[in-house]
């Protein structure tokens, strides 16, 4: 039985505070495991985990794979480029074939919103969303929250600004829901063409002026801006984006003293974030990467329902 209120992690919208707290607290022990010489525990021995990636991904896939291996799970990777997808097999057929291979847990990334939910309807495995369209990317938001929580010892009453392409970002959506549930104050900032319609209904403060957005904030989480937005008429140029929204050293003056700079990667240095900001003492960008493994270990462990006695 899952130790969370659901047997799947499809998103953070509607996930209760107790679940998020449990994941973050559990991740603390796994973070310690990662720092050991032997970075492995037997917790998920005999559990088969499939990494089902329909979209190219390097860091999220590797992070999950490492998390699985460090929990002693058996892992299999399926990526769209090397699979039957190119032969025109339907999603259901692919998934049913995988189900027939007796997989216990599936980590899925897909370009379409709702695919993780679709999987829950056609297989018995625990489903973990590793990003569906522009919908949710819950483990990224959990690792962001874990990183903030570890630094400040709390999430509530912190001011977190998410900067970038709000409209197309699943990372931002998951961060909004998770941070709000944990009592943080969330601000969104991006060009008006990259704000989703009725953005105010997310319940965040919304800015199109980055200096105003950063005023009095504790954490700035900078999102990658996709260069192809230019072609679809959403942005005039990369240069203009950088001028208006790039996080440069100058802009950091408005932040609270003990501020934090985050980025989920991969970074476009000099575009959405200046190198000197990304590499500064306030940057936790590489901690995010390490913490990602711990958080994913926690999610896998809690959803699997395995007992702890096998030692951590």
């Amino acid at each position, binding site marked *: 039985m899952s130790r969370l209120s659901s047997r799947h992690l499809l998103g953070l919208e509607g996930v209760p505070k107790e679940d998020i707290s449990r994941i973050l607290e559990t991740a603390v022990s796994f973070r310690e495991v990662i720092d050991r010489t032997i970075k492995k525990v037997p917790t998920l021995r005999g559990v088969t985990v499939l990494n089902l990636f329909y979209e190219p991904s390097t860091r999220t896939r590797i992070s999950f794979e490492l998390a699985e291996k460090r929990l002693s799970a058996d892992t299999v990777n399926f990526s769209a480029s090397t699979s039957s997808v190119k032969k025109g097999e339907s999603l*259901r057929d692919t998934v049913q074939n995988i189900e027939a291979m007796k997989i216990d847990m599936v980590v899925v990334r897909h370009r379409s*919103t709702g695919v993780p939910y679709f999987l829950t309807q056609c297989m018995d495995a625990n489903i973990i969303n590793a990003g569906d369209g*522009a919908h949710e990317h819950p483990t990224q938001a959990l690792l962001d929250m874990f990183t903030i929580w570890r630094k400040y010892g709390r999430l509530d009453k912190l001011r977190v600004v998410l900067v970038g392409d709000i409209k197309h970002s699943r990372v931002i959506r998951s961060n909004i829901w998770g941070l709000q549930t944990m009592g943080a104050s969330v601000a969104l900032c991006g060009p008006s063409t990259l704000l989703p*319609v009725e953005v105010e*209904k997310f319940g965040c403060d919304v800015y199109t002026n980055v200096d105003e957005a950063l005023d009095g904030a504790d954490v700035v989480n900078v999102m990658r801006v996709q260069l192809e937005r230019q072609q679809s008429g959403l942005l005039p140029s990369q240069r203009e984006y950088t001028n208006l929204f790039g996080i440069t050293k100058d802009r950091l003056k408005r932040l609270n003293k003990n501020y934090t700079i985050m980025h989920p990667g991969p970074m476009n240095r000099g575009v959405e974030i200046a190198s000197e900001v990304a590499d500064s003492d306030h940057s936790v960008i590489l901690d995010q990467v390490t913490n990602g493994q711990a958080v994913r270990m926690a999610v896998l462990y809690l959803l699997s329902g395995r007992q702890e006695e096998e030692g951590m």
Partner: protein
Amino acid sequence: MASKKYDLVIKDGQVIDPALGFGKEAHVFVKDGRIVKIQKDSAAIARDLKSLDDDQLIDAAGKIVIPGLIDIHVHLREPGGEAKETIETGCRAAAAGGFTSVCCMPNTTPRIDNQETVKFVQDRAAGADARVYVVGAITKNIEGKELSEIGDLVKIGAVAITDDGNYVQNPEIMRRSLEYASMFDIPVMQHAEDQFLCAGGVMNESFQSSRLGIKGAPAVAEEIAVARDIALCQVTGGRLHIQHVTTRGAVEAIRKAKLAGINVTAEVTPHHLVLTDEEIGKEFNTNLRVNPPLRSAADRDAVIEGLIDGTIDCIASDHAPHAEQDKDCEFDMAPPGMIGLETTVGLIKTYLIDKGYLSWADAVRKMTANPARILGLPGGSLAVDSPADITIIDPEKKWTVRADRFQSRSKNSAFIGYKLSGCVFKTIMGGRIVFG
């Protein structure tokens, strides 16, 4: 063999015919495929009825007897999409849904943009369980570039033209089509959605699409298209029919146009009257993927208001069959459309009549007299000497929509599992019982 006085008598039903202003208990008499009289009960009538065989009598006590329903927007998929629907199965679905006449859209393969294809559909429809009226294409191959041979299409029986599924994006072509069609006094039916504004959109653009991270098609795409076409309709003096209206702004534009005396009519689908975009995030049911998309509750309410006040003339299902394997996929990969012929009556009864928005007479008018008037179709009334196209409804019967009960070859309904009140008891076309 002695010739019978009547072939069929529907007795004791509550007869509602908005075209005749008729609404009371009466018997309907049919002979040679036509209606010969509608009469209240009397001693003489009772004697008449006694002389009839049982199989000539339909007991409609407690039922509602109305003119055969007319759906001016269905996709029968034939030719080319026979795996989804054929003219035969589509007409069977129509009969099961109480429709005796349907107008089929031309976006088949090949397109219905020439006489031969119209003829093919007409031939296939001969002997089917519903009357099929063909709507031809506005432009050749529905490409929005050159006008079809509209005169030819009308000559062989097309009742209107549309590029349904596609918006005639080029205003010059739309202008000329309205002008040209006015020679034949047929309406141009427009699928009003600006293609640039809704490019890539698979649901309504709203907080729901923002929340789900799904690309939205904004209401303004429809509103700008409707406003443009009303302006073109006014300058050309043509007849414009707006298909599946879904937004407040479109309803307001049509209301204003009608007040100004512009020759515009409009339809709405049952699914846009009942569902909103809030359904989509629940289970990502691909049957909720329709064009135009399901809108917000505020838009839905405005459309209901437009239907009540007559801004929207008729209810049409936009019956759009898709094979199961084509809909069993990612939400944004699913082809748009859902079937509707067999759920329209139950939905309208449950969600509009029972909620007090429409009376039976209003609802029936919007599915009989009004669509008949827009397209100049025979039927739509039980007037003496009309074709005996009659639908009998069991108004309070509760039923659950089930995929395995559909007559349609496709099952892509978002209403499967819905509990509805009111269903079709019998459908009679040209004096022949085609359902029930």
